[in-house]
């Protein structure tokens, strides 16, 4: 056994070094800050991306405002998939991104959702009936889906009526969580959170017409830290490609 290992080692070592050298050139890791609402789609995209390109995607999920603060303070993110277009634009103006790398990767769809079947009708009449105790939304100051929710309420003329019933999640994930645990009867969530394979997967929902609020454009950028990382460039290209587009649409986003 010993002998065999010894005689085998030099060749294996050379092969190993060869492998490392090759992968060192071709496969890189890319650190991505991902808006909470895009958690499920990016996981689906990541496995395809890793399969197709050999690069590895390391994702952190969170609120866009928080990511902005972290990026300004030296966070190691190389690509940023934001929940809005204003934060990436701000970073662009402040010179924190690779020039020309900003593009819209998805347009979000808002949904009024309840975990209970049949609770939300497909025209949102449940809001006017006003028989619920808590209506969950994402923090409108920080989350674009929250802002869109307040715009919808304003358009329906219900802002004052439901004011005392609104509970705020810090981001769209928490807004969803309040509804999914039944603590709020209904709430405004991202369609991507409740949409699977082209339909609402559980509970009842009203998919809000896009005319009722400003478009929720979600922009992506390559940050300065990712300037020389080929995997960062590869990821943004991949996001623009047909495979990613199909996945993104399957979660209820528009493009």
């Amino acid at each position, binding site marked *: 056994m010993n002998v065999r290992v010894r005689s085998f080692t030099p060749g294996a070592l050379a092969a190993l070094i060869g492998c490392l050298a090759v992968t060192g050139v071709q496969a890189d890791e890319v650190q991505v800050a991902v808006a909470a609402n895009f958690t499920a789609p990016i996981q689906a995209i990541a496995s395809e991306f890793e399969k197709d390109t050999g690069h590895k995607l390391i994702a952190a999920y969170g609120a866009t405002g*928080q990511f902005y603060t972290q990026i300004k303070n030296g966070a190691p993110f190389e690509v940023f998939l934001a929940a809005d277009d204003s934060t990436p634009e701000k970073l662009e103006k402040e010179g924190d991104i690779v020039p020309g790398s900003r593009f819209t990767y998805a347009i979000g769809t808002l949904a009024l959702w309840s975990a209970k079947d049949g609770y939300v009708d497909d025209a949102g009449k449940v809001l006017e009936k006003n028989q619920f105790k808590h209506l969950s939304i994402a923090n409108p*100051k*920080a989350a674009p889906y929250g802002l869109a929710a307040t715009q919808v309420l304003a358009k329906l003329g219900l802002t004052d009526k439901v004011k005392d019933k609104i509970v*705020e999640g*810090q981001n769209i994930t928490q807004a969803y969580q309040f509804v999914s*645990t*039944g*603590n709020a009867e209904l709430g405004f969530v991202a369609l991507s959170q409740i949409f699977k394979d082209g339909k609402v997967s559980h509970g009842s929902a009203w998919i809000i017409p896009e005319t009722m609020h400003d478009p929720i454009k979600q922009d992506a950028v390559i940050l300065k830290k990712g300037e020389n990382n080929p995997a960062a460039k590869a990821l943004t290209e991949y996001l623009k490609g047909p495979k990613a587009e199909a996945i993104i649409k399957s979660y209820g986003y528009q493009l």
Partner: protein
Amino acid sequence: MTLSSADFAAIWLTLKLASLTTVILLLIGTPIALWLAHTRSRLRGPIGAIVALPLVLPPTVIGFYLLLAMGPHGYVGQFTQAIGLGTLTFSFAGLVIGSVIYSMPFVVQPLQNAFTAIGPRPLEVAATLRANPWDTFFSVVLPLARPGFITAAILGFAHTVGEFGVVLMIGGNIPEKTRVVSVQIYDHVEALEYAQAHWLAGAMLVFSFLVLLALYSSRKSQASWS
């Protein structure tokens, strides 16, 4: 730029929450601490461990379980609905319950240390003088354990003021009901309102320092408090 009315509402709410929590904790923490200090029961270990749990658990764990338990499908939620209180999530009462659990060890442990330090001897002397248990508690234990009570009250109050994760999970960020200072600061940072965040955060820093200064200064002057 100074503090807005929303900031003052958050400060007032936080002080109200911390005061109420402290009072409740002193009331229920005292018998627990007395029992822990004097019992020889086999349950002493498990109960002590349960009381200490919030020291090591991330607040998000406590908040998450409270969100499930106090929700309409949880045991607590079903109980409160059955007695006509509705659910406690997104309410001030819910925050008080969360804070009591969260700050429990910060009140019970100083009290327990104080009671242990007194030892059985003064209690036995009181008993030989025919003092009943209530009499013993108010005339002997309470004065002797006073520094322990002060420490417990200060720590319970300050720790509740500093609470964030639990409130975030069960509060729902409702102005004047569940939006406390720590959440308000988080909101400001999220919305990139750094100036307002600075004002509140600075105030918290000064407050926390003064509380600890008071605590450590009093500790120096009283050699044997707990």
